[in-house]
């Protein structure tokens, strides 16, 4: 074998392992969403000069590992691990009240791992099928982003309000861009980090006001209950095909395959819809609960992978909410990776890795995440949940994230970066709270401002 290739694989394996371990840990802490954690750390690997294979494996292993451990707070404590876990919460809570939260967790995690393994090759296959249209897509990129933004806005919970809100939202981004341009500063990560952390910034502003504080005030601390655990297998590495029964495996595989083909819809929406489809086919209530949970977590995983991989491999343009948010540094991390607004030209992982490399490193990433995160989530979930809920205060988590947004924004644009992140965060957080103008739509709004608006202005 070519020594260069061996070196590349070794780097990819090392970076993937780091990603899997770090994000398996981060997933335990509820409320840490992918954009605020995966995006900055992936950006860091890009800027530190890690080879493309290493960057890609780091990102994907991190994402898959995090999705497995974020099921732990969701199932055991009834707190959503992040927004992607929201649609799973209700069914998980019912099993928790029946006293079997560990069953909910095992079904979810096993569904997720099976889905991840089939989602990577299928997403790459769909990307290869779409690739012939790549030239057309890149030429008409500004219009496609506009159409995608409107489509994604309409399918968000805010419906027409979200579509209409795109206009003022884009205007504010354009205004901020022209402000920073006056000082020769061009920002990108500050915008989408601001969008992602928006709910926290909006909450912090609200709690400063006496009226807001009255609404958010609580008499007591929150109550959680953790049921005793029962281990259902021997050894360290359980077999996911034994944790799920045959019909659960079948449903997980088929729904994951379907969702691997979709990349513009939000993972949350896909999860809800396909979960309903599965639920309507299962007769007994208990079996329905466990089957829907495994299929839903599989769909979340598969949609997420497809949303990151299909646009990256087929077009090199961040044409989905995941690609525009958590996976953004794979597309755009100046000066190393760039997307040219004017002509849709790209220089990023799309150009640096071929289809076979995407497949090989993608499978390597899922394998590493499975080795690290799956047995951890299955064996130590209860202890991990107990540790996090008893030792890690919410104040500490907020302190870490406030520090993170300030470091990244100051790093990117000094004081201007900080002002942009605060403005975007406050506006995005409030719009999301009041109108359900969710972060996925906001990411697309950002790209509309960057890519579509120059093309529209040219027409006028």
């Amino acid at each position, binding site marked *: 074998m070519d020594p260069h290739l061996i070196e590349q694989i070794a780097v990819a394996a090392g970076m993937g392992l780091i990603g899997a371990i770090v994000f398996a840990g981060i997933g335990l802490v509820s409320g840490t969403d992918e954009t605020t954690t995966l995006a900055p750390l992936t950006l860091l690997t890009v*800027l530190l000069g890690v080879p493309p294979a290493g960057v890609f494996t780091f990102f994907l292993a991190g994402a898959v590992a995090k999705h497995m451990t974020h099921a732990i707070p969701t199932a055991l404590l009834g707190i959503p691990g992040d927004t992607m876990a929201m649609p799973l919460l209700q069914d998980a809570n019912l099993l928790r009240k029946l006293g079997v939260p560990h069953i909910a967790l095992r079904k979810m995690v096993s569904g997720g791992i099976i889905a991840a393994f089939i989602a990577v090759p299928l997403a790459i296959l769909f990307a290869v099928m779409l690739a012939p249209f790549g030239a057309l897509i890149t030429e008409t990129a500004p219009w496609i982003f506009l159409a995608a933004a409107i489509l994604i806005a309409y399918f968000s919970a805010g419906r027409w309000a979200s579509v209409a809100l795109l206009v003022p939202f884009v205007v504010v981004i354009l205004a901020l861009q022209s402000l920073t341009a006056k000082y020769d500063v061009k920002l990108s990560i500050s915008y989408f980090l601001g969008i992602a952390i928006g709910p926290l910034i909006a909450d912090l502003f609200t709690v400063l006001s006496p009226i807001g504080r009255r609404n958010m005030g609580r008499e007591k601390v929150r109550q959680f209950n953790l049921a005793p655990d029962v281990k259902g297998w021997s050894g360290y590495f359980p077999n996911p095909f034994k944790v799920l029964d045959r019909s659960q495996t079948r449903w997980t595989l088929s729904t994951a395959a379907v969702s691997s083909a979709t990349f513009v819809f939000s993972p949350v929406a896909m999860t809800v819809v396909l979960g309903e489809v599965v639920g309507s086919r299962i007769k007994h209530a208990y079996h329905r609960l466990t089957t829907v949970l495994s299929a839903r977590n599989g769909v979340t995983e598969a949609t997420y992978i497809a949303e990151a991989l299909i646009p990256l491999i087929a077009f090199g343009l961040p044409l989905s909410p995941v690609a525009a948010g958590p996976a953004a540094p794979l597309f755009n991390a100046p000066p190393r990776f760039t997307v040219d607004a004017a002509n849709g030209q790209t220089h990023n992982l799309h150009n640096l890795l071929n289809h076979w490399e995407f497949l090989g490193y993608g499978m390597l990433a899922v394998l590493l995440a499975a080795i690290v995160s799956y047995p951890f989530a299955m064996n130590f979930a209860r202890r991990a949940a107990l540790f996090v809920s008893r030792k890690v205060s919410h104040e500490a988590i907020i302190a870490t994230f406030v520090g993170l947004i300030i470091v990244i924004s100051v790093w990117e644009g000094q004081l201007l970066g900080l002002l942009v992140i605060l403005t975007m965060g406050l506006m995005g957080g409030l719009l999301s709270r009041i109108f359900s103008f969710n972060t996925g739509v906001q990411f697309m709004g950002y790209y509309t401002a960057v890519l579509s608006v120059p093309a529209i202005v040219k027409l006028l």
Partner: protein
Amino acid sequence: MTSKHQDPPSTPYAEVWGDTVDLRHLAWAICIGIGISVLGYYCASQWLISVVESRQLAHAYAMLAGLAGCIIAGVICAKAFPPKRSVTETEISIDPQWREEVLQELSLQSGGMGSVSDLPPVVAQELKELKLYELFADAERAEHAVAPSR
């Protein structure tokens, strides 16, 4: 109601970003978070510019130092401020009221409770191991007993 408007809240707890915090602790935690991470970032960038040849790389390492500062701040805050959660470890499945609630909710779902005779043998076995089989079977019998009288 009026007394509520006049009196400041008796407890300093508030729900921020999905969990309960003590507002005084939160204020301190934010100061610590900003202080350590920004200090780490600036010190590292000053030092790295003189050590690392490439400016771009120095800039990226400074961000790493800043992020390390965030983690350190998080650890300090975790030690200084205890969580505002109460975690109990009782077996709630013993609580018949919870179970009753769940069964009611399940029977109201579209598709209803279903029959244990519809279950594949593996799933029936799983329910027996979890000691939930009888619960569902009883609920089903109760449902059938009610149905004809309607």
